[in-house]
């Protein structure tokens, strides 16, 4: 099996490395923050990151340097950087590892990003359930302040950066960047209509950049080794490495950092050890619950933003969920629809009501009460959500439904014809309560 040199998971793979400030400085940590503050201009820094090709690791894959460059240069009031540590896309657990094992790597990235956009205040928005992660970050922030790596007049310059940890309280939607801002402002996490984008009117209506944990963690290494080095890893348009979280029916689930562009086959069969009990593979979700299901015929698709889009799904958050031949696709779609229905924020009617209707129809098909016209009804419900919501949640929630209908339509038809779930004979009972 080919092995790859990790970037972000490298420190934590060293024996005895616990992610303390001492550990992180021992491997050269914070040298790049010092360098940018002392020697670089924000526009040089933005150019380097643009040249590296780094794209957002939260899910959308937008150019990080470009996102930074949207901050108005002539703005005189405050600007904000928000670190999105609200990791909640089902199938994804990489930021958790970056936070709990190497918090200073993320903090250095935050400092660098603050300098790039001229922000003196950063907020780390961490999902409420990450109690241990919050304790670890809080401790790391304290260590960094004590060492004068954050605070006033950093490294003898007149640049100040303050960092505040802000904890969520359980809402998937707060990973959406404008909902995240609403949540920091002490409101319900309901996405805002865009435009205006956060770069113009963000937190407290001031220019704001929201970057994911993994995105920020890449910054020290891009600066240290140069943008050409980074752009040389991965594919031409999807540069660098990516941490994929692999779960479900695989022998070795876990977080694996690989160059963008390896095949799904290599990821599932070589790196993650193949399907449990050597069963046949049935379905793959390549990028978190919002990404449409793929089939074994897509195993040779490359795991980069473009290639996965070409086969009809998306790389999203990098959460790879693997399902074996005995998994019911109607049940899997229903499970994710329960998730989306629960997490719909309620702002847009098509999403709020549509998720409930879709779930109801899926439940009756899975429970053996489906009607032949239900498949078309599901497609029609999905069409009434797509493009009709304020945020991307609408497109996300219909992905599992439309893709299972497209790729596994016969399973829906069998449920309806046989009036039961062929995989889970007790499904009707389970759904009844």
């Amino acid at each position, binding site marked *: 099996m080919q092995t790859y040199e990790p970037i972000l998971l490298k420190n934590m*793979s060293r*024996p005895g490395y*616990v992610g303390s400030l001492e550990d992180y400085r021992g491997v050269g940590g914070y040298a790049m923050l010092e360098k940018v503050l002392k020697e670089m201009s924000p526009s040089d820094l933005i150019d380097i990151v643009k040249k590296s090709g780094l794209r957002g690791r939260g899910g959308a894959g937008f150019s990080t340097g470009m996102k930074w460059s949207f901050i108005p240069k002539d703005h005189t009031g*405050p600007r904000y950087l928000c670190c999105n540590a609200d*990791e*909640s*896309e*089902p*199938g*994804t*657990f990489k*930021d*958790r*590892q970056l936070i*709990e*094992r190497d918090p200073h790597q993320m903090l250095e990235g935050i400092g660098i990003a603050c300098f790039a956009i001229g922000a003196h205040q950063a907020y780390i928005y961490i*999902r*409420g*359930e*990450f*109690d*241990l992660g919050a304790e*670890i970050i809080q401790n790391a922030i304290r260590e960094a302040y004590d060492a004068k790596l954050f605070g006033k007049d950093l490294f003898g310059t007149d640049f100040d950066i303050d960092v*505040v940890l*802000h*904890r*969520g*309280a*359980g*809402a*998937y939607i707060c990973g959406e960047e404008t909902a995240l801002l609403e949540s*920091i*402002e*002490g*409101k*319900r*996490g309901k996405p805002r209509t865009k435009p205006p984008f956060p770069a113009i009117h963000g937190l*407290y209506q001031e220019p704001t950049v929201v970057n994911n944990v993994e995105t920020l963690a890449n910054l020290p290494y891009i600066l240290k080794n140069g943008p050409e080095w980074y752009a040389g890893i991965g594919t031409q348009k999807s540069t660098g490495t990516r941490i994929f979280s*692999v*779960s*479900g*029916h695989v022998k*070795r*689930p*876990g*977080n694996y950092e690989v160059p963008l562009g390896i095949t799904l086959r290599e990821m599932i069969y070589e790196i993650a050890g193949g399907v449990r009990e050597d069963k046949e593979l049935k379905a793959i*979700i390549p990028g978190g*619950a919002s990404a449409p299901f793929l089939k074994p015929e897509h195993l040779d698709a490359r795991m980069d933003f473009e290639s996965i889009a070409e086969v009809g799904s998306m790389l999203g958050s990098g*959460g790879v*969920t693997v*399902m074996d031949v005995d*998994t019911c696709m109607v049940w*899997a779609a229903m*499970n*994710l629809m*329960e*998730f989306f229905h*629960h*997490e719909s924020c309620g702002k847009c009617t098509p999403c709020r009501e549509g998720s409930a209707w879709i779930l109801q129809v899926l439940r009756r098909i899975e429970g053996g009460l489906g009607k032949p016209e239900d498949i078309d009804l599901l497609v029609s419900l999905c069409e009434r959500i797509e493009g009709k919501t304020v945020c991307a949640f609408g497109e996300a929630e219909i992905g599992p439904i439309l893709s299972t209908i497209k790729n596994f339509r016969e399973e829906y038809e069998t449920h309806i014809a046989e009036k039961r779930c062929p995989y889970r004979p007790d499904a009707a009972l*389970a759904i009844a309560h």
Partner: protein
Amino acid sequence: MRLKVLSDKAKEAIEVQFPSYPDKRSVLLPALRIAQEEIGYLSESAMIDVADLLGLTPVQVYEVATFYSQYNLKPVGKYLIQVCKTLSCALVGAGSIVTYLQEKLGIRTGETTSDGLFTLKLVECLAACGSAPMMQINDRYYEQLTPEKMDRILEDLKRDGKSPLATGPFMLPVMGERS
């Protein structure tokens, strides 16, 4: 200001966060967390206290308290067991974990044991998909669950109030485990 139920300590813990934000309202989520930790859940009186401290109306607090899933508007047991039910966990046995806990504790999901110790709840993805099935009990994760492991965790909690089986700083695959 005279608070209804929150202690001076809670008040102080809330007010100390004001300088971190340009607007006091931003302290609402942290304040509700502090209130819940002190009272055990968010009673109406606790929410009114928070509103007073932050200069908000009670309904501004209530609408936020009802939006986020971690706020309990009713009392829960000393140990709140939250089992993840989303796909990756469901694929590898979350269902049998729930069945086992229901039988062991003699309650159904959403209920609390008569001694007030355990509340059992189903929740959506907690970002522990690779180490599924999993549950969160109060402020700690418990992963790669088996019936034997759950027995030990519940016994530990009853006896010591904590369990060494809680997950520490997360890493998967564990180093040296890969062939």
